[in-house]
């Protein structure tokens, strides 16, 4: 019996590492290639690895006139502003939605998702046309608005879930013991929903840092963010510069998550799923 089971168990034992390895390759393969490009000085076609390594392109990227610093600054500013704007709009909307009767809530949330269902290129083209009339093209504010559009959808969905999970009797207890509606919201509801709101802001931030299409139509050539810089570099055949930009793009994302993690204790983050 045990002898017969052995091959099956061996196979089962091998399956997991094999699957893990495959997943790791799919996830990290392109990243390794990208990391190699970032430190390449010469890499011609048939070679599997670069023929010359070095930091020459890093210096080029960070030269004051190259625009990498400005792009980084734009990316981070726009992302933070998009987080602020999306949450400022999403918090009251989500609270109202969370307190609505269920069938109506589902319907409104679905309608809210609709713009995301369209291919976003025509949407951004139309937004660009509208913004042109309003004089918002090429302004940071215009780019923030464009980034807040998908951000708002994430924020409303996640925040609605967060507010719905807040036990109604916690609010009633506060009202009963003397807190007005606003005081109750700030003192009880908001702290209870905080993990969800933090999750929403992480989503909005990461989405904004990555955003390309909207920025391309509304921002360029006046506003250059890191993805735009990367696109320009790739189109010009500067794979090194594109790769380095991509690595820089990691910095604000990881930084934002680290800050959030610092501010929140693990037990608060663990409640996001609940």
């Amino acid at each position, binding site marked *: 019996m045990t002898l017969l089971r052995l091959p099956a168990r061996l196979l089962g034992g091998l399956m997991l590492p094999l699957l893990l390895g495959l997943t790791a390759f799919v996830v990290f393969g392109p990243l390794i290639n990208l990391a190699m490009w970032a430190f390449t000085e010469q890499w011609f076609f048939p070679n599997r690895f670069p023929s010359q390594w070095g930091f020459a392109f890093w210096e080029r990227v960070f030269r004051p006139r190259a625009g990498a610093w400005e792009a980084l600054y734009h990316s981070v500013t726009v992302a933070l502003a998009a987080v602020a704007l999306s949450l400022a709009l999403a918090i009251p909307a989500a609270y109202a939605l969370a307190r609505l009767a269920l069938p109506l809530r589902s319907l409104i949330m679905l309608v809210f998702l609709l713009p995301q269902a369209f291919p976003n290129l025509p949407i951004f083209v139309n937004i660009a046309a509208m913004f042109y009339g309003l004089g918002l093209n090429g302004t940071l504010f215009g780019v923030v608005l464009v980034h807040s559009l998908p951000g708002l959808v994430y924020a409303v969905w996640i925040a609605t879930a967060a507010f719905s999970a807040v036990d109604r009797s*916690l609010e009633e207890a506060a009202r009963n013991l003397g*807190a*007005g509606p606003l005081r109750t919201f700030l003192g009880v509801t908001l702290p209870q929903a905080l993990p969800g709101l933090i999750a929403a802001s992480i989503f909005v931030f990461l989405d904004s840092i990555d955003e390309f299409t909207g920025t391309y139509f509304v921002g360029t050539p006046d506003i250059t963010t890191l993805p735009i810089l990367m696109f320009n570099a790739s189109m010009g055949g500067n794979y090194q510069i594109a790769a380095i930009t991509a690595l820089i793009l990691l910095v604000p994302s990881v930084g934002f998550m680290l800050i959030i993690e610092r501010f929140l204790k693990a037990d608060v983050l663990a409640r996001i799923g609940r």
Partner: protein
Amino acid sequence: MAALELENVSIRIGQARILNDVSLQVPAGSFTCLLGPSGCGKTTLLRSVAGFAPLSAGDIRIGDRSIAGLPPERRETAMVFQSYALWPHMNVGENLAYPLKLRGVSRGERERRVAAMLERLDLAHCAKRPIGALSGGQRQRIALGRALIIDPPILLLDEPLSNLDAAIRRTLRTELRDLQRRLGITTLMVTHDQEEALSLADRIVLMRDGRIIQVADPETLYTAPADLDTARFLGVDNLVPEGGATLAFRSTQAHAGPRALHAGLRRQGRVIDSTYAGGAWRIRLAVAELELTAMGEASLAAGTPAWISVPDHALMRFDAHRDAA
């Protein structure tokens, strides 16, 4: 004088009538229980006093001040919720201090009163603990303390003991009663547990289908229920039609045995079965077309003839005839 008064209170939600023309006076310092089956409107009645269930008609007064139009935070009624509703992002001390903070009590005074309350609840060592670290009984006591810390004129309790296991429930029941007596605070409590209502309350308000059926002290309610449905809700499990009326009694007050006793009601029948009920036997008898239950000192074999005897004081007579089924 009535500390709390409800006058012709009606609450309708859509077509449903949750409360129907309810009038009630709660005497100052009394412990009043709202008792009834689930869905009878007792919780809605309590929530309407706290301001969480808007009235369709009627008025609610504390003393001579109408509170029906006030938002919950201005009613000064302190409520203990069934789920306790302690705020999980605050520790025990912060939970107790929050109502004081809302009233603008200074920090030093807050700390003093929280410490005094924790002392009174015998939970002084728990001040810094998170809510999640407390047992059910401790949560219940903290919820009670949080309500009492503002010295409210009215204390509202929504099934405060129903989430606890039997042993803790008994202890807390005694504690709750002692505390209420000592503070002399007017208390209105919702419960579906008749034993709880009978042992805690000075007055029981029995409700059914959004109406008040009977208001009485526990003993009167238990021995003289207003109607047959109330009697059945209070554990009256034997009904004997007699003429146009129905005689009703509890099996615990009836005797079953081979001989009849000197009693107000005597019937002969055959034993269906006997089950041991701790200290005595519960014996089911087929009496004509009826099935009656009574207690006996000894087990009786199925099929043997036996007598059921009910003393006069245990018999209740209801005029409207209804089937036992």
